[in-house]
């Protein structure tokens, strides 16, 4: 079993503090969901876990099985077992999806122990079939000209090929049509198990109807303000966030004057 532990995390972007002390522990075989209003720092948390260059961690720790994640370069984090399905994946021209995936898989393996080409193709084909992706997506350039939904499926394809210990999925449901939502959810559910833990960032209950979370957290103004089980997500769906502000005595952001 593995554990991803986040403690007292403060993160700034361009001098502005976004995360103001986040604590979160995720174990293998657990699915956590984070919800919360727009602009409260959910993506910031995701990017900080992966090591995005523009997000600066000013306090707190992130560890993976006791190892200091913040000390690692982005690629080292990935090879240590972290994965981030991005809210806005990049487009890389001239690099085919298949070449990219093979390079990424081999990056985790030792020299001389590269994945055999045939095995790779078989696995790729199988995963693309499950995700109902067009065959030509393998030979097209990475995300270039992909529709919003196609990009999201492609993130999940990478997840399935790379098999990380922990995945953070940032709004993987946005832009997906109804069928795709079901297909992508199945792709994620298939990974559930002893070797996999997951943090899902979403705005909508409909994704959680397919993937039942073990824990649900609410992030407001850069902090996890409430945690609960799957029922909490349903409550949020029904009532929105205002009642939480009241219940927890959170001032609206505008009242917080910047120096």
């Amino acid at each position, binding site marked *: 079993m593995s554990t991803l532990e986040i403690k007292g995390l403060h993160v700034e972007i361009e001098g502005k503090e976004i995360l103001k002390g986040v604590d979160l522990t995720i174990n293998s075989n657990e699915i956590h969901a984070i919800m919360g209003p727009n602009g409260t720092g959910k993506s910031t948390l995701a990017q900080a876990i992966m090591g995005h260059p523009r997000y600066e961690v000013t306090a707190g720790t992130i560890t993976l099985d006791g190892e200091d994640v913040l000390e690692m*370069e982005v690629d080292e984090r990935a090879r240590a077992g972290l*994965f981030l399905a991005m809210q806005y994946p990049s487009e890389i021209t001239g*690099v085919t999806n298949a070449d990219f995936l093979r390079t*990424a898989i081999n*990056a985790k393996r030792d020299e001389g122990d590269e994945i055999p080409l045939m095995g790779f193709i078989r696995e790729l084909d199988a995963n693309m079939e499950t995700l109902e992706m067009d065959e030509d997506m393998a030979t097209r350039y990475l995300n270039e000209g992909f529709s919003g939904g196609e990009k999201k499926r492609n993130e999940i394809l990478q997840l399935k090929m790379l098999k990380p210990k922990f995945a953070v999925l940032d709004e993987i449901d946005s832009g997906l049509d109804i069928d795709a939502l079901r297909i992508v959810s199945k792709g994620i559910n298939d990974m559930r198990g002893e070797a996999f833990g997951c943090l899902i960032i979403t705005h909508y209950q409909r994704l959680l109807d397919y993937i039942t979370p073990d824990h649900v957290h609410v992030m407001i103004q850069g902090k996890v303000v409430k945690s609960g089980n799957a029922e909490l997500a349903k409550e949020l769906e029904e009532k929105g966030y205002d009642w939480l502000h009241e219940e927890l005595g959170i001032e609206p952001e505008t009242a917080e004057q910047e120096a």
Partner: protein
Amino acid sequence: MTVETKLALTEQDVRSFSKKMDEAAWMSDFRAEALAKVEQIPMPKPDKTRIDRWNFTEFPVHAVESATYESLEDLPAQAHELIDPDNHENLYIQHNNTPAYLSLSEDLKAKGVILTDIFTATREHSDLVKKYYMTDGVKVDEHKLTALNAAFMNGGVFVYVPKNVVVEEPIQVLFFHDNEQASLFNHVIIVAEANSSLSYIENYLSTVEEAKGQANIVSEVFTGDNAEVTYGAVDVLPKGFTTFVSRRGVTGRDSRLNWALGLMNDSNTIAENITHLIGDGSHSDMKTVVVGRGDQRENITTKIISFGQNTNGMILKHGVVKDSATTIFNGIGKIENGATGSNAEQESRMLILSDRARADANPILLIEEDEVTAGHAATVGQVDPLEMFYLMSRGITKKEAERLIIHGFLAPVVSQLKLEGVKKQLTEVIERKVR
């Protein structure tokens, strides 16, 4: 300060060279007339690069004699790798200045296709060559360097595809250089008559560490009505050369001329690639990739001029500049008065890999007609940190991620080259140059 043009050769010299190469008689006069002009006409003025201190006129010897190849097995390994093991029936090799190997399939011969060295061509296909040699394409008196090419021409090839002939397999031409004394004053003429099609692939390869001479290269391509020509080139000339290379196209009605140029020289280089879209409905697709390194200076001009109606010119240019190299991109889309319904598009992108490198992209649109469409995009920048983050977030190392992005950036030309060996070579040269 201007370098004095003191020419190494006299009229006597060019005439006797012409005689030695057994050219058609008109060629001797043509050379002599060009030589007379050299002194009088100015150097070209490539935008944003001062070349008045570049030496375009001095070289150790005009032409060297090199070995011919009985079989491809005689080729040195580096050259041999460029030859496709299963697809080399249509192949011409020039060794320094010597026509060294020629093969053309029986089928193409029977259909009237011509592939021959330029000297023989002036003799055996005199009228044809005379019709196209520096007439409607590059002009002798365009500037000093074209006149020099005309006077000193010491190599090149003539390719002719008759009407309605479709050349299925590419025709490959290898200009192989392995003598540091040798200069290349090459002249290539490609004629594709109406309804024909051809894929031509040209390699400039040198095994010399540092050349001592000139590379002054002119190519002229003519597409007949409804013809289609794809011209692929990978230039890998070493430092020491002063390189001037002019590739010019003239299109007939509804024809298509595609260029895919991998400019991988290590020499200082002035390169121009120009298509004149003469025939209505003709189309030119111009793709160029460039890598500049060391203290190399390069000025790359790509230009498409629409004369005919409903013509379409597409320029795509990607360059990587590192070390203290300077690369200038001039992209010109011109639509002449009367070329209604034409379109001129261009995209220039440059990646700078070091603080000392200089890159400059100048897109220019010159539109003299109302009912046309045109557009350009130009960017100069570093490798996108977000792209790097994306790739590295999948476990790919920084170095490998950068490599992938750069190769991807230069892929548009690689993917157009129709011979595996040449594709592989360009990929490897890119690898070597950007490392």
